[in-house]
């Protein structure tokens, strides 16, 4: 238990000074089970932050702690210089879009959206205007008087968004809001959600288990694994520079190479390349698209360790439009996946290469 604790404090996850929301060393237990084991995270104003993790990683619990539906066992949550965690849910300047929308079935769309304004005693003359603007924003104006039950899933989703945004929360919390929609609608809503967020400029904290969704939407991704933050970084950075083997495998596809580093050279079962890391056993992440097929007859430059070259036999080839997915077996019966643009049908043994820079050193990650 002590190893992960020290690890989390050395990770670059300390609250940023300009954070709007800062989560400090938060621990949450349900009975004997620790769901969150020391989370520290800062969220900048106007940021779209995604909490990404598998089911059971604690991502929804973290969101519920911010919303005030659960009480934390240790740590603090601050918002705009104010302590948030002792405040009851109904007084917090945050709003939630629920996974199942949670629209009030006995109220019309208008009354659903007006609910928060009425509960917080907004002047009566202001309400219709603000409700209509919110409905306009999500393109639901014509459904003002409809009952939620008569709306489709996507429409309910929009109303839920309007109902939350109309209160102008400091932070909007979204709990897997798109998971109930079919694939096409989902992509469309992703685009709309992103542009809506830019438009209103409100900080979004978005929970999902879908890494593609996380990459498409987020300014930053906080990857959660078994109650600990694995990595917090922008989508491009987390993809290009995953800090752990888990992060590399969870976000996109990757090949994990177990290499022995000695004298500035990494050796993974006969594949060698230049490496500036310390001596010893290390894991490397190599994205499938970083492996290239060597055109037969290209001379190998001797002692060019900036590029790793190796022979491998084609085990399997799947046509995938612009990129084919190859499974190749090199020495040591190590199987790698490679994405090669238009290679044509391949058989037998071929030569492949990758740049040393594309093999990213990763830690094995927190113990679970």
């Amino acid at each position, binding site marked *: 238990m002590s190893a992960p604790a020290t690890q989390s404090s050395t990770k670059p996850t300390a609250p940023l000074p300009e954070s709007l929301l800062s989560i400090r060393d938060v621990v949450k237990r349900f009975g004997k089970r620790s769901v969150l084991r020391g989370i520290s995270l800062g969220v900048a104003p106007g940021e779209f932050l995604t909490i990404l993790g598998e089911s059971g990683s604690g991502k929804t619990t973290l969101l519920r702690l911010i919303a*005030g*539906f659960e009480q934390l066992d240790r740590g603090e949550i601050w918002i705009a210089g104010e302590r948030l965690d002792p405040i009851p849910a109904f*007084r917090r300047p945050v*709003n939630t879009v629920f996974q199942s929308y949670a*629209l009030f079935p006995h109220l019309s769309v208008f009354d659903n959206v007006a609910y928060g304004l009425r*509960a*917080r005693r907004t002047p009566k003359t202001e309400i219709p205007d603000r409700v209509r603007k919110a409905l306009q924003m999500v393109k639901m104006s014509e459904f003002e008087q409809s009952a939620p039950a008569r709306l489709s899933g996507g429409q309910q989703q929009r109303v839920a968004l309007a109902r939350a945004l109309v209160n102008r929360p400091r932070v909007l919390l979204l709990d897997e809001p798109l998971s109930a929609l079919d694939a096409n609608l989902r992509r469309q809503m992703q685009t709309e959600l992103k542009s809506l967020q830019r438009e209103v400029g409100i900080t979004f904290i978005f929970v999902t288990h879908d890494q593609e969704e996380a990459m498409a939407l987020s300014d930053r991704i906080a990857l959660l694994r078994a109650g600990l933050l694995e990595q917090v970084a922008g989508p491009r950075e987390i993809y290009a520079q995953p800090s752990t083997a888990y992060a590399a495998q969870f976000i996109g596809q990757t090949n994990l190479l177990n290499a022995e580093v000695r004298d500035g050279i990494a050796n993974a079962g006969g594949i060698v390349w230049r490496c500036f890391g310390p001596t010893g056993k290390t894991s490397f992440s190599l994205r499938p698209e970083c492996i290239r097929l060597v055109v037969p007859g290209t001379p190998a430059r001797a002692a060019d360790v900036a590029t790793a070259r190796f022979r491998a036999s084609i085990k399997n080839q799947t046509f995938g439009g612009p990129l084919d997915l190859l499974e190749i077996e090199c020495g040591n019966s190590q199987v790698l996946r490679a994405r090669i643009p238009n290679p044509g049908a391949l058989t037998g043994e071929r030569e492949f290469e990758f740049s040393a820079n594309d093999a990213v050193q990763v830690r094995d990650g927190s113990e679970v």
Partner: protein
Amino acid sequence: MYSRAYKAAVAIPPVLWVTVFLLGPYAILFCYSFWSVSPQQVIVHNWNIQNYLQLMRNPIYLTVLFRSMRIAATVTLLALVLGYPLAYYASFYAALRKDLLYQLVIIPLWASYLVRGYAWKTILGSDGVLNGFLQYLHITQRPVEFLLYSPFAVILTLTHIYTPFTFLPIYASLEHVPRNLVEASHDLGASSWSTFRRVILPLSLPGVLAGATFAFVLTLGDFLAPLLVGGPSGIMISNIVVSLFGAAYNWPLGAAISLCLLLLVVGMLFATEQLERKLTLS
């Protein structure tokens, strides 16, 4: 998908049931209400509306009917006031004791109605438990008489008996209130009280309506409680029907009162159903 013969065969039991136990008896009752009793105490089949006219003319029937409705309304109100908080607590706050509480409310329903009626008789009587207790504490010097054989006793007994009937549908409707709606309400800035008023109560109204209907209709038709604890001032309309079919041997008049009562109840059921449909659709 199913053959006609199969469909017909499946329909036979309910059709038989409805005919033999509902339509038949009501048809007979309907006929009786237009007949009369001769001075020789024989029922004669000469069609007339004398029974209904008598119902209107003789104030005793209307007085007792209004008293019955007043008692039924009071019992309904009390049963709701007792049953709703109980159901609310059981559904939202009892957690692990939920099932226990539920069973505790149900158990009295397994005891015979008569036993519960008699129990109240021994509690409320002039040498009963309650009077003994009051005198022991020197709150009263001699037995308090109005406790038993009064409308008060009838209301008390019926409230005790019919509160579970309000509890059950209210509990069921509260259990169906999605808990994330409560969270959504808090999230939008509503306090617990405000959430109850704006979300929980409106969504449980169908249960309240069903419970109220049960309590009102069952109380209105009750004749055992007035018989056991009511006394002369606690007589209800069904007691009159019972005596007309029994000692007084005036089946036609009894049938006429029964039909009026039936129409009243059916009208009420219809009205509440309309109301409920309106509530659930809005």
